[in-house]
């Protein structure tokens, strides 16, 4: 699908060591280490305000760290930056392109900055905006605007792609469409650093994920490995009708329950064997005379990993 003109960078596409950045009294990034291997899609997963965007913008050379080292495609910022930028594709959070230009004119403008790469028409076709090529940017939907942003990131045939929250604020259909596009570029051997606060996005797109919170990395691994670390494949959440209550220690004692906690009236159990734990749980509740108001169960996700690590939900803030 994507015409390759560059051989992908070999080795490590992006290396970040002990990165720190503070704004006035807020520490945005607090000693972060990252390595993005060539050809991998690496996800920075964390809630809003975790320092993801600051980290990415430092990697993109748009922000300067207080301390720490960043190597992009083996090179640091501050020396022949424009050459390095020729090899990067960047999609920032919340860029608004000029509404009075057409899609084609916008892509042409961005294409003119790069020495090489596909033609504007080819890039527009890649992100499936052919029908909108002559439309003004102001008339595009949110999903179409994000695809335009992706097109502008791809015009230079980049070796390393930075995508900062590429699907935030989009409807589910537009998100899936964008995921398919990103997957195709990934299949092509490009390296991608992606930030998101959607766990399903990270699970679907990323080869490896770093979970960040308060500017620190709190977990790193493949999505499967991180979920496996919970030692529980399922999560059961329930609420009891007032004024019933049940002691968490009783819940932890149930066969197949790995962890149990209560928060805001909702009980949350990590369960390894759902078919054994559920009957025992219901029996225990009946024995305590507790009335169920709500009961949900789902397979464990990265969200559950985040909750088990921080006690908070990704999208709480």
């Amino acid at each position: 699908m994507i015409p390759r003109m560059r051989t992908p960078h070999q080795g490590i596409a992006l290396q970040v060591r002990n990165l720190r950045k503070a704004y006035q009294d807020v520490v945005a990034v607090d000693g972060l280490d990252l390595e993005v291997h060539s050809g991998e899609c690496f996800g920075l997963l964390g809630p809003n305000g975790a320092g993801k965007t600051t980290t990415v913008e430092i990697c993109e050379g748009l922000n300067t760290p207080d301390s720490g080292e960043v190597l992009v495609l083996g090179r640091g910022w501050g020396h022949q930056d424009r050459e390095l930028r020729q090899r990067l594709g960047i999609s920032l959070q919340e860029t608004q392109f000029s509404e009075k230009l057409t899609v084609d004119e916008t892509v042409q403008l961005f294409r003119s900055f790069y020495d090489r790469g596909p033609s504007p028409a080819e890039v527009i076709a890649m992100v499936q905006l052919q029908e909108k090529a002559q439309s003004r940017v102001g008339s595009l939907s949110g999903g179409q605007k994000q695809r335009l942003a992706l097109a502008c990131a791809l015009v230079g045939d980049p070796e390393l792609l930075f995508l900062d929250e590429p699907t935030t604020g989009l409807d589910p259909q537009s998100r899936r469409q964008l995921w398919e596009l990103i997957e195709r570029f990934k299949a092509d051997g490009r390296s991608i650093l992606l930030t998101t606060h959607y766990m399903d996005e990270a699970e679907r797109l990323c080869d490896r994920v770093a979970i960040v919170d308060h500017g620190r990395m709190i977990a790193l691994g493949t999505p499967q490995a991180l979920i496996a670390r919970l030692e529980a494949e399922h999560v059961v959440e329930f609420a009891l009708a007032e004024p019933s209550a049940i002691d968490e220690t009783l819940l932890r004692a149930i066969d197949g329950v790995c962890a149990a906690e209560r928060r805001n009236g909702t009980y949350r159990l990590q369960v390894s064997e759902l078919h054994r734990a559920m009957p025992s749980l219901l029996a225990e509740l009946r024995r305590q005379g507790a009335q169920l108001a709500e009961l949900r169960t789902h397979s464990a996700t990265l969200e559950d990993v985040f909750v088990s690590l921080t006690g908070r939900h990704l999208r709480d803030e």
Partner: protein
Amino acid sequence: MSEPGRRWTGHPLVQLTRVRYREFFREPEAVFWVFIFPVLLAAGLGIAFRNRAADRTVVAVVTTGQAAPLADALRRADGLDVSLLTDSAASEALRIGNVAMVVVPSASGQLEYRYDDSRPESRTARLVVDDVLQRASGRRNPLAVRDQLVRERGARYIDFLVPGLLGMNLMGSGIWGLGFAIVDARKKRLLKRLIATPMSRSQYLASFVLSRLTLLVIEVTLLLGFGVLVFGIPLRGSLPLLATICLVSSLAFASLGLLIASRAQTMEGASGLMNLVMLPMWIFSGVFFSASRFPEQIQPFIQALPLTAVIDALRANILRGAGWHMVTGELAIILAWMVGSFVLALKLFRWR
């Protein structure tokens, strides 16, 4: 599929400049304010202040004593309109400016002239009325005089006005044109997105200069063309000098616009700053009336304003046909503003 040699349309500077045109011409309001409004303003003011064959002066005669023969004598004179009013009505008319002066006859035959000596038309009316009445009463002039009327293009208000409007327009389009576009791009985070590409930052700024220069040609041609064709404004100076004045003026105001836009994060902040910068020039720089009317003490300040220099240079060139050596002072001031603002803007400019 790769493009080893760029077609000229693919050059970033060409692309950036075309974006400037597209953004401008696709904004009907901008086109109106830059191209149409100054012409409308010139047309409106030109008509309002057109020179009439001779201005009529209105005087009142109070209906006491010998009012009727006095009024008749005044009516026979050129350029006087006379109304007979009661004392209180005449005073009221004088107070609100409907009449230039009031003539009050008295039983003793002595006349009273009632007028405000700070009003030029009242002082004129006093001289005319007195002359008419004295001659009607038998005065003979000891000195023989002859009037030769000289009505020349270049001395009318519209002649004075058009270079002023041109200067004001150069200022407005330079400051607004650059300032708003840059602050808008910063607010939309488009500036940040652009510097994330290999785009040359100086080419980005150069694209504003290039587009400004082309728009400048249209702007100047429209307004001056209108003035010449409709009002017969004389273009007495050399056209290359006129073009040079317009060019450096436009660049100076564009630099000033860049300076104002160098930090502003919001449109409201930017437009406040722009008005703050432009307001003194609208008032003091002599767009609508001569800047020399302001007190001597603030003249150094007024003369240092870029718009004052621009308008003085334009009037000297257009109306008096002044050569290069006569506008070097003004050109120096304009160039100083251009270089100073640009250097400072580059120091302060934030891309984020």
